[in-house]
């Protein structure tokens, strides 16, 4: 371990402050990939609309994965769509986050047993950060998932490599 690493691995005040600033920027401007799959997408749209207003948290829908920070998997992931989701995820620039919204995305939901065409949980193709339960979740539940994600980002550090 070199001198620099040693200095950085301690709780250096400068690094800690920079960490805070960077994490603050990341967590307060999560641009979401506009990506709806099934009925959960309706709730996701409701979350963006006037009465719930996702924009309060700095969440802005972007249409291209190149400019998005988070992807909200809102709905049933069919086996065909799974490939596309994986591709979209790979097109996003780091650091990127995933919120799995609703039962279908969490584990296949009603199709977990007999759905021959449904992926049993989106975490089989991409790493999920937050699971929001519900069928579909209320917009507030999605907000709570977002707050959980923000909490996770707040505890990230420059020293650790982010996923």
């Amino acid at each position, binding site marked *: 371990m070199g001198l620099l690493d040693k200095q950085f691995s301690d709780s250096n005040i400068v690094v800690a402050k920079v960490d805070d600033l960077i994490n603050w920027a990341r967590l307060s401007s999560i641009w979401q990939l506009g990506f709806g799959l099934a009925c959960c997408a309706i709730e996701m749209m409701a979350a963006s609309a006037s009465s719930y207003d996702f924009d309060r948290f700095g969440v802005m829908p972007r249409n291209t994965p190149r400019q998005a920070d988070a992807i909200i998997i809102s709905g049933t992931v069919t086996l065909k769509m799974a490939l596309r989701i994986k591709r979209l995820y790979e097109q996003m620039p780091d650091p990127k986050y995933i919120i799995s919204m609703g039962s279908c995305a969490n584990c296949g*939901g*009603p199709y977990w047993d007999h759905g021959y065409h449904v992926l049993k949980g989106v975490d089989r193709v991409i790493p999920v950060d937050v*699971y929001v339960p519900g069928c579909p979740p209320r917009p507030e539940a999605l907000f709570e998932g977002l707050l959980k994600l923000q909490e996770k980002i707040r505890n990230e550090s420059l020293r650790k490599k982010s996923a």
Partner: protein
Amino acid sequence: MSGLKQYFKDSWEGIWTVLVGMKITFKHLFVPNVTIQYPSVRVPMPERVRNRLYVNMDDCIGCDQCSRACPVSCISIDTVKSLPSEDLGVTSNGKKKALWVTKFDIDFAKCCYCQLCVFPCPTECIYMTDVYEFSEYERGKLLYNFSTLTPEQAAEKKANLEKFNAEKEALKAAAAAEAAAKPKIEKPQDKTE
């Protein structure tokens, strides 16, 4: 000539309709906003809202009806019969409990919040609450264990029952043997024991 007239009319209409639209949007700039500021303000839930399930284990008699009603089979229940010597108490509506519920798991990742499990419950111990904020970082944490028994206790109960059953079997076998032996008088008990 009418074409030219139409042309000017179109131009005028284009500008005028834009102005009308702009008036409407400008009015909305001063309309009080309708946003619910979620983390600080919450909408009151309706009375019969369907969100996370809750199981009151004090009342559960382990009848497995909710599990069978579940369309996505997200409830899994294991029960162990209680010994006659044990008193499990009664539920709040007076039913006598006869089973140890060693496992009562609900996977909220699978649950589709349809409330079908609530109606068949004879003791009304499983019901929908108004809690909707329970996101997790890991999917495993969405599997809720409602059983009040620890795994050791469950194992103990199981062992107890097996022992009891074995004893009962033994007694039964003994009784059967006795019944069989009576005409013959001979006792096969020594051989079986």
